[in-house]
């Protein structure tokens, strides 16, 4: 059943790769313009160690940024939901986080935090925090009004209402925010590395991409891009699995998954 489901996309991938390989060879496209898949694979093997080390560093930065986003975003979302005045006062400024171009403020991060892991993580955080805030806030406000009445009727404490009603109600929307944030965290990490990743020690995938670009090693560049895509997908998959685990028994969106 599962294998049958995976067959069409895998087949399509093989066909696309084969056409790509054939065209590049037949038209004799230079390696630096568009390397064939076989050359990318070779570069991947050849520079496996470098790629693995940089992927590890990027993964760490993305994870730290994502966890900061999850923690801060959920806490802020819950806090803002507690009062309409608070929400009106602060929510517009969280939208600012979403709209500010990270490339524009990344240099500022270097000024503040110095080049290296810290600035990269903050970059990942800034890019990925808004969907978590928005998802949490929307979820906290989606509580069934009849259940709010019920809790009031039985004299529920604030803590009971939060833990037994509001947070469980918010989970589906919260996880939608986290899923979006997981992909954004990897993007924010790469952008952060482009600007601030040149510190001592080993470079992340963003730096590997820059270096490969400067050396016109397009095959390595492709391999590194592929690596970051795999990273983003894995983080997304992990968040998805966590959401499915928590909601599998009761939420309609996870009933047939």
């Amino acid at each position, binding site marked *: 059943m599962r294998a049958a489901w995976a067959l069409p996309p895998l087949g399509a991938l093989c066909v696309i790769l084969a056409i790509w390989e054939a065209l590049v060879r037949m038209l004799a496209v230079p390696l630096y313009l568009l390397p064939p898949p076989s050359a990318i694979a070779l570069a991947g093997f050849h520079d496996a160690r470098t790629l693995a080390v940089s992927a590890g560093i990027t993964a760490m930065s993305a994870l730290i940024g994502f966890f900061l986003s999850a923690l801060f975003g959920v806490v802020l979302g819950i806090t803002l939901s507690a009062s309409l005045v608070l929400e009106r006062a602060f929510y517009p400024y969280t939208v600012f986080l979403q709209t500010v171009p990270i490339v524009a403020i990344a240099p500022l991060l270097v000024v503040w935090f110095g080049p290296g892991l810290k600035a990269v993580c903050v970059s990942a955080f800034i890019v990925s925090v808004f969907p978590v805030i928005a998802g949490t806030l929307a979820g906290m406000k989606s509580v069934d009004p*009849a259940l709010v*009445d019920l809790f009031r*009727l039985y004299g529920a*404490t604030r803590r009971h209402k939060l833990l*037994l009603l509001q947070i469980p109600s918010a989970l589906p929307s919260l996880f939608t925010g986290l899923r979006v944030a997981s992909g954004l965290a990897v993007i924010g990490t790469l952008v952060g590395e482009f600007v601030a990743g040149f510190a001592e020690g080993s470079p992340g995938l963003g730096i590997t991409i820059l270096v490969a670009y400067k050396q016109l090693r397009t095959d390595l560049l492709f391999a590194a891009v592929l690596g970051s895509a795999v990273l983003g997908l894995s983080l997304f998959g992990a968040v998805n699995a966590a959401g499915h685990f928590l909601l599998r*028994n009761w939420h309609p969106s996870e009933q047939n998954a």
Partner: protein
Amino acid sequence: MAAQAGVSVGVRGVLRTFPDGTQAIASLDLDIAAGAFVALVGPSGCGKSTLLRLIAGLDTPQAGSVSVQARDRLSDRSPVAYVFQDAHLLPWHDVLDNVALPLRLGGLDAGARRARAREALSRVGLSDVAGKRPAALSGGMRMRVSLARALVTRPRLLLLDEPFGALDELTRLRLDDELRALWRAFGMTVLFVTHAISEAAYLAERVIVFSPRPARVVLDATVDLPAERGPAIRTEPGFARTVQRLHAALELGGA
């Protein structure tokens, strides 16, 4: 589950206008005797639900007062229970925890509240689905769980807002019978809001018919039917006469 005597309800000159200017209730007076089963009938949007929320203390009137006798929150935390139009269960809890919820909010420990929730579940004939999630139940079963959740606090005043309106006819008739049996067993005061005239006549000892908004009492009638009621009563002339009378009152009210 020990029998718990009902409480009386008094509504004095109650006025409720919503922020948009809609006048739901204008100067309403009502007296409900302790242990009565009263049906409140009226056209949709006439303010019956608002009245129920006012009596439950979920809403406050602009003028007038609502008093529920012996509503002593210290000695008897939740003497009032409320059943909504839909079941409104917590989808992430199983049936047992849903029924036990009011006790949990009241601070009862896990063992005691589970035991009482099991008892309430057996009252509505659902002991075998205690471990299931609401999503796995039919609409009628969910409504039964909702009823068990209302009974678990041993309420002295049970408020129901068109509780069986969304169910199929057969399930609704069955639940009507169960509700009446529960009332006869426990003796709590029951206020039942409905727009179905025959359901009101079948269930209640007293039916109050409201006019369209703002709610005004058009008819306050005692139902002259035996206490022991079953499906056969629907074909009796006495039942037909009651239904006819309520129907005429509704028409007169301008529905």
